[in-house]
């Protein structure tokens, strides 16, 4: 284990207890005196994507216990007192200033440009080059822990997928579409740093569909619509996770610090069209044959935000994750079931229709 620059704080030690018991034996006192620590002694955590629903929840959980720094490329996030907030693009030069101004101990990298945002080139820059820069800066400034929020998209929606994909299943997203290159490359990059620089303690989390209040990914946008496109004759099995449970998963990964790659998914499954109905959407049947037709329609009608042409396969074939490793290793269990998740979208529609 490489030495970490700042060992006085609670959590970098929790990490080294796991890694090397001998080294941490001498310092059990620090954990006991956590409450009495002044702000300057607290561990500093940088959270990217701070404007998003998930990062906001993570920041709320971290706040008080840790010194939090909020970063987003979209807007300067309004934060609670004592949380510095920055509007910065990770792949731009200004990003390093944050590392110079604060002694950052850990990074929780939630910020991603969604697949429906901007052009593929801009997305590549933000997600791949941005992450590379984040990892390089973490290395340079002695960050002791990095959590990376990936996506189940990386596995690719193929008709030949077995169910319950393990973390070591091949990442075939680019077989399906070139538009997901950034998702896969971000992961490969994180993987390289994971084995090349163990001192970064990288944990990669691959969640299934994350839904809930404030979530703005394609699936959440789709299920918020009164009319949801579905492919005729295809209703792939899916897994859904409430954003609160995902935030809890990130916190567990952060607290336990067991580097590696983990699927984050419940062991409950529902077909897409059932989910659509359960969320109170009416189904808009889209002809699925010939296969090029739904893609054409999506392009033509500009459904990029919720039914993007390159995600069509994910509405056709299942990508079912085996989340057992994470559940067992971290003792994580989602608190919200499918019905809890869907009822938010149902109620949201009732409220909207009541107002109009």
């Amino acid at each position: 284990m490489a030495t970490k620059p700042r060992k006085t704080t609670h959590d970098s030690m929790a990490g080294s207890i796991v890694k090397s018991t001998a080294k941490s034996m001498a310092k059990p006192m620090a954990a006991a005196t956590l409450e009495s620590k002044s702000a300057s002694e607290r561990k500093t955590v940088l959270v990217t994507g701070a404007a998003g629903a998930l990062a906001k929840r993570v920041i709320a959980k971290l706040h008080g216990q840790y010194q939090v720094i909020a970063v987003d490329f979209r807007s300067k996030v309004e934060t609670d007192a004592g949380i510095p907030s920055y509007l910065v693009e990770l792949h731009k030069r200004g990003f390093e200033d944050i590392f110079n101004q604060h002694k950052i101990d850990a990074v929780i990298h939630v910020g991603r440009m969604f697949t429906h945002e901007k052009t593929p080139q801009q997305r590549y820059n933000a997600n791949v080059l941005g992450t590379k820069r984040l990892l390089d800066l973490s290395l340079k400034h002695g960050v002791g822990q990095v959590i990376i929020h990936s996506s189940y998209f990386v596995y690719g929606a193929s008709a030949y997928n077995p169910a319950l994909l393990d973390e070591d299943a091949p990442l075939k997203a680019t077989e399906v579409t070139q538009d997901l290159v950034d998702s896969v490359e971000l992961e490969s990059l994180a993987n390289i740093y994971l084995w090349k620089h163990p001192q970064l303690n990288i944990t990669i989390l691959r969640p299934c569909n994350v839904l809930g209040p404030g979530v703005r990914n394609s699936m959440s946008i789709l299920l918020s619509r009164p009319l949801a496109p579905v492919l005729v004759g295809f209703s792939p099995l899916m897994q859904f996770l409430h954003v609160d449970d995902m935030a809890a998963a990130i916190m567990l990964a952060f607290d336990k610090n067991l580097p590696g790659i983990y699927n984050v998914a419940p062991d409950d499954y529902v077909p897409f069209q059932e989910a659509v109905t359960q969320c109170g959407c009416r189904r808009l049947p889209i002809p699925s044959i010939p296969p090029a037709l739904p893609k054409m329609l999506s392009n033509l009608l500009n459904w990029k935000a919720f039914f993007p042409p390159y995600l069509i396969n994910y509405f056709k074939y299942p990508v079912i994750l085996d989340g057992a490793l994470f559940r067992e290793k971290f003792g994580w269990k989602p608190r919200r079931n499918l019905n809890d998740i869907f009822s938010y979208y149902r109620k949201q529609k009732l409220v909207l229709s009541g107002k109009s």
Partner: protein
Amino acid sequence: MNLKQRLQQQLVTPEILALMARMPKPTGSFGYDAWGYNEDAATLAVASLKLLYDHYFRVEASGLENIPPRGRVLLVSNHSGQLPIDGLMIGVAAATNPHGPRAVRGMIERFFPTVPWLGNLMNAIGGVIGDPVNCSKMLAAEEAIMVFPEGVRGSGKLYKDRYQLQRFGTGFIHLAMNNDTPIVPVAVIGAEETMPALANIKPIAKLLGLPYFPLLPIYAPLPARMFIHFGEPIIFDSEPASENEVSDRAAQVKESIRKLITEGLAARQSVF
């Protein structure tokens, strides 16, 4: 009331419901498992196929006590009759087994998920694509899997070759040993006579992208009487030293199926 509900009301008897309730088959909050199996769809499938089972093929099953009431198992059977009617009937026999009903999982061809409706339907009634990952994960989840080691060599063979076991693949032996799974040998008698193929019309098969295309007297399954014999479980508890030994074990299973077939044919009094 939609079509599905109407069918459920018409076909699903209290007996079927009671059997389905006894099945050791875990599903999630919407009645689905990770491979797309759905309780409601499976119940409806068992209920409707039970009619064919009782009244059309008049299936007689023996040795049902050899299917373990719970826990992982491989049902390894001979394959015949062009269409997988034998598989469906084994499924009904296991699902309505008075000694302990089981939901049997069948392996489907890889192109099925690409076919609208059919892919989802096959999954819902227990079919999964025959991927080794699927098989080992299902056995780990204590499922009952049906295997036809002859594959299309068995189902596509001609009437003149009936009841002659074709070459067995060895994948199922690896699967059984890697997952500590008992093998129940199964012999199906009568499926050969449901679709007596006189020849394989290869050009049409090639044109349609099918493994074979039979020349048949009638393009519908004939009402041949079917018999399904379940043999005693075979357990291989030691690791094989070589691939040769694996082949020997496959041959051993094949031999026990052959024996069940011979006995079954001798006991059969009429084809229809």
